């Protein structure tokens, strides 16, 4: 009886020590699920989901505080990927958070710009250059099209311009002609 107790206690101590060591040695930094969700999100940083950026939204999804259908720039495809990752049902984009739009970039009308720097402060990815009372301009390749700079502009000189195809970015069409279902 006593031997059994000693043996069991011994095993418990050894295993406990091993597990405790492993918990410290192989500690996972951060939440890998958040990283995976963040990798699917489009990184527009527009805040349309109701969170200040894609990472916070990813954290909210991981914690169960937000639904997967709140990201308009990610669109239907993004929701499908999130549903796949999290093993949830696909659901259409929630309307209160916006609609899917073609990718655009901000364009500052440089004749109207008064150099107030408000858009520079609003840009989440530092894609606008300029200084106080100097003309501002958008660095197009860096712009995510989040539209956050449009509202703060006091002279309404920022417009969202849809990105057009170039020979470089042009895509071949899907060869299947979809036959529309007649209800």
């Amino acid at each position, binding site marked *: 009886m006593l031997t059994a107790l000693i043996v069991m206690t011994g095993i418990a101590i050894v295993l406990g020590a091993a597990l405790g060591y492993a918990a410290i040695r192989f500690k996972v930094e951060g939440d890998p699920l958040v990283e995976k969700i*963040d990798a699917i*999100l*489009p*990184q*527009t*940083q527009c805040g349309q989901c109701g969170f200040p*950026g*894609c*990472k916070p939204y990813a954290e909210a999804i991981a914690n169960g505080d937000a639904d997967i259908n709140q990201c308009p720039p990610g669109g239907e495809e993004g929701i499908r990927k999130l549903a796949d990752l999290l093993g949830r049902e696909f659901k259409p984009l929630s309307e209160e958070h916006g609609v899917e739009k073609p990718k655009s970039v901000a364009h500052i009308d440089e004749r109207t710009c008064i150099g107030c720097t408000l858009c520079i402060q609003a840009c*989440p*990815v*530092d*894609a606008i250059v300029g200084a106080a009372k100097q003309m501002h301009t958008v660095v197009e*390749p*860096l712009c*995510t099209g989040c539209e956050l700079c449009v509202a703060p502009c006091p002279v309404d000189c920022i417009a969202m311009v849809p990105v057009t*195809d*170039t*020979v*470089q*970015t*042009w*895509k*071949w*069409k*899907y*060869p*299947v002609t979809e036959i529309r279902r007649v209800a």
Partner: protein
Amino acid sequence: MSARLFQFHGGIKANGHKRESSESPIQQAPLPRRLVVPLRQSTRATARCIVEPGEKVLKGQRIGEPEGFLGTAVHAPTSGTVVEFGRHVMAHPSGLETRCVVIEPDGADRWIERKPFDLRHATRADALGWLRDCGIVGLGGATFPSHVKLGTGSGVDTLILNGAECEPWITCDDRLMRERAADILAGAGILRELIGARRLMVGIEDNKPEAIEAMRPAAGALGGNIEVIAIPAIYPAGGEKQLIRVLTGIEIPYGKLGGDFGVQCFNVGTAHAVYRAFDHGEPLVSRVLTLTGNVERPGNWEVLIGTPVDELLPLAGPKPDTDRYVMGGPMMGFALPRLDVPVVKGSNCVISASPALFPPAPPEQNCIRCGECARACPAELQPFELYWFSRAKNFGKAQEYHLFDCIECGCCAYVCPSHIPLVDYYRFAKSEIWAREREKTAADLARERFEFRNYRQEREKEEKAAKLAAKAAATRAKLDAEGAGAEPAPAGEDPKKALIAAALARAKAQQAATAPKNTDNLSPATQAEIDAIEARRQATQQAPAGADATPGTDAR
């Protein structure tokens, strides 16, 4: 020649249709009314325009400066006036516009001063720079810059000259080899020297016996380890990996290039352009182009880069039942979106297509998994699997099945009994995958920048707080030093309030100490003037009623 030949997997034997256009010599195409020269002449690179509308240019004068690693220079194809710098539709399946320089020829076709490049007294880097500045790109169709392809100049043992011209109908390389064999081999010699290769092999399909007959004596006359080899005419023997396989037996694995195995391939047209660039100092401003198909006078023309296709077509005389024009060969070419598109360095052929010559494809039917496509695929892929995955937009799986090894030769679609346009599916999948990769790179960059911005804002906040704290501490220390006894801060009170009180006290003291400075030390004359003004002012103030009646001050 005694060389042993190898075989590649699959391929098809199609009717070559070479005789139509191969029997007449290369003719010089007349000067067009205007030339539209796209600045995008090599893959993935657009040159920077360095001329302005109204400027006079000479033939061979540089109009586009090379930019980037893959950039090559662009030159004026003839002498004349630059009339426009704008966007024009390019010969590309998308029908999209690129930046072009429009030149109106003056008819004189006057060359800029040409100087041959002496290879013996130049470094390798200079020679490669010369190739870039002459705008030499691969003329087989891919337009990859030759100076990049020549690589580091070591590790390549065999240079292969690609004269296979495996696509049906096209004969521009055939004619070039027949008529300018010595020039081609001279260019190949320069390429061989630059790449540091020992062997030079010329692969020509055996359906071009005249070209082989022309090249062999030329090679013999030059001497020095040049083999001209006839290879079986099986499409796509002119594919780079396929030709290397046939001639050397080396199979280039996934993700590798010929250069990794000591073999490099150049088109015969490129070799000819290299010869002109080095021995005559001529940049690449023209190329040989086949006009064939449903035309009265099929043949080959030496055409200036930038010539609109609709100005070329009358040379061959398309028959009335022509319904579309294909640029490139019938297997890999594309239907031209418009006819005013200009000829570019990669354009080797324009085919007039009629319903009789190229019947419209029968309706697409379901894949029956017969495996014919897999038997025909020269890249040894499983085209039907790729088709399923591309159609289902399962791009990850398509990549697992090596979609990017597909050379889009069209053999699978050619043999498909269900008439499925397989290559369209692969092109669709490839461009989607590229688009996704671009999006991913952009998203990664945005994430990085967003995180850095957050970090920067945090840092600025901290720095501001630290600065304020340091300033407050400094002020307090100063006050303490100035004499804590003057106004002892009540113990236990908020130090901030004490600071404000101290600042107020200081301000008051300063105000009291400061007397109006500009009335001190006045000269007697000024003092007298001031007194007079004061007296007048007092007089006015004492008689307000009279002042009100003064004209001009009536406010109403």
